[in-house]
């Protein structure tokens, strides 16, 4: 037979274990809501972001229409020149000192390839003094690049260094 005393102990034990269950659950919730920490980037490194939008030149050069061709167009649609919509991809190169970090050809966006090209890249690099060089070609030119910028930079640990491109202010921006 189970005595009243044993029953009391058993029910006390049950209460205790319920309390322990709640405590363990809540402690688990609180713990994993902040820990362990996640190392996304080595904190002794710096990051260079190469990011911009830029439209390449048109694939077909605009050309003058001949008088016969103008004649063929509907009267309200007559114009002197014809231009294609499609754009060239842009070619980008990024060097850190003499080391090539990135070289790519960014295609134009849009269903008809008539939009801007987008570049967005993140690089984890060692802090310190570096010569950073970036080049961009947005035309049919083959011998060289249309834009180029080279500058000595000082990177601190965890610094976020952005290489942008704004042709209206003369090309690449480093900040």
């Amino acid at each position, binding site marked *: 037979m189970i005595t009243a005393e044993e029953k009391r102990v058993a029910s006390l034990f049950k209460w205790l274990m319920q309390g322990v269950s709640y405590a363990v659950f809540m402690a688990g919730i609180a713990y994993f809501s902040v820990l362990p920490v996640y190392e996304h980037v080595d904190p002794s490194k710096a990051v260079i972001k190469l990011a911009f939008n830029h439209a390449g030149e048109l694939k077909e050069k605009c050309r003058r229409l001949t008088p016969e061709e103008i004649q063929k167009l509907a009267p309200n649609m007559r114009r002197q020149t014809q231009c294609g919509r499609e754009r060239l991809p842009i070619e980008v190169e990024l060097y850190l000192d003499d080391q090539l970090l990135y070289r790519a050809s960014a295609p134009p966006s849009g269903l008809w390839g008539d939009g801007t090209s987008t570049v*967005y890249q993140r690089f984890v690099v060692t802090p310190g003094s570096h010569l950073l060089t970036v080049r961009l070609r947005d035309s049919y030119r083959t011998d060289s690049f249309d834009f180029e910028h080279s500058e000595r930079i000082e990177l601190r640990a965890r610094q976020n260094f952005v290489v942008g491109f704004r042709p209206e202010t003369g090309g690449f921006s480093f900040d």
Partner: protein
Amino acid sequence: MGSLKRALRFLFQRVEYSFDAFFGPALNPFVNLGSLGWFFYWIVAASGVYLYIFFDTGMVQAYDSIEQITNVQWYAGGVMRSLHRYASDALVVVIILHLVREFSLDRLRGKRWFAWFTGVPLLWFIYACGISGYWMVWDMLAQYIAIVTTEWLDTLPLFGESIASNFLNNASITGRFFTLMVFIHIAIPLFMLFLMWLHIQRLDNARVNPPRALAAGTLISMIVMSLIFPAVSQPPANLDVVPAVVNFDWFYLAIYPLLDVVPGGQLWLAMGAGTLLLILMPWLPPQRNKPPAVVNLDNCNGCRRCVDDCPYSAITMGARTDGALFDGQAVVNASNCVACGICAGACPTATPFRRATDLVPGIELPNFSIASLKEKILESTAQLQGADRVLVIGCENARQVSSSAEPDVGVVTVPCIGMLPPSFIDFVLSRNVADGVFINGCREGDCFNRLGAQWMRQRLAGQRDPYLRRRVPRERIHLCWLGNGRKKRRSRELAAFRVLLRDLAVSNDNGGGKAGG
């Protein structure tokens, strides 16, 4: 798939039995996961409303306003903030467990597809809420989330420009994305509530509130945790500095580290495929539908008991079509009916005391009629001998007693224990078909058909129609709610029950006749 379900089922059972020991079956958190989900949702909603009152929705001011809430009014706003975070995390935990458990119980196939199907998008919404919530703090974690999330979104061919470019550095940032997040963080929970409501539309008596003691224990322990270990912000966001190492909420962000190793596009693909697989789960492989319950109008008096007891909202009361003067008639919606038979167990006309030719109740299963139940009972008990003859009536979802291993025990299996009309127990004992009835059903709170075992208990206790008549000797009924585990314990209970029956026989011989008659 079947063996995966069985393995998971086994695992859950092991854990649940040990929780039963401390909490008892009714308060066991594992049988209350869905309702705990609702409970956490309400905690998050209520604390969220409080926080929003003091929150400044501007990107620049947001961080400071949250610091104020956390530190200046730590006893109110601080606790609210902690509750908001911890209940959101707990929601993830219980819902993932809920998903796996319902899967292991196979409560998703055939006509039960609806709850599963509507549950899957809820997962996406829970995550969208949590992630947008961390964004709103605009601390270093928010900065990390903003950068990685937008980079990840950029791998989808949806946006013309790179949206990650919105978070390049302090010079280029604008508040428009932040405003969008605030909007998302309020709009999605509202939509979630609608989906949660939809989720249980095909279930009758869905438990959306956990038992009071469980709710109290959960809330109190969460408040205590909020006071001991309050949720705080990390340093404010500064886009000129790399968020290299961050404190991480693993409940919401566990997949983010993958983005540092797997291309974002592939992760989207994997998650899309995973979601599709989840959505299709109820039909993998398709289940053959059992024929739905049928109504026999000659025997239906419109009492509504079947409507009240059907766990799947498959019966409604319709206008009388046979001209009889009753209030209405039962109408079965075949696309909801899973053929559990619980309605037959509820119908007052399903009684074995009627002549066999008449034994057609108002509602029953076409491939397991009440008349055939009576036949099976008589057949399985015909050969039994002695003073401890036992009729085991078991649910097909619980582990069955083997009649060959147990001499003088007859076994009848029903689709759900809730299909057994209590009058059958009266019949077996009063007609001396057997000396005792052993009811073998699913574990408490764990009925495969959700409510069958609960209705059975209430009917036997006289709390629910149809009652077991008072004259039936209760000592000759043994209720065994062990589900499909615990083979040994079941045998022990059966053996003990038979000893009791033999003792009863001796005492009856000594003094007066057997009860009933």
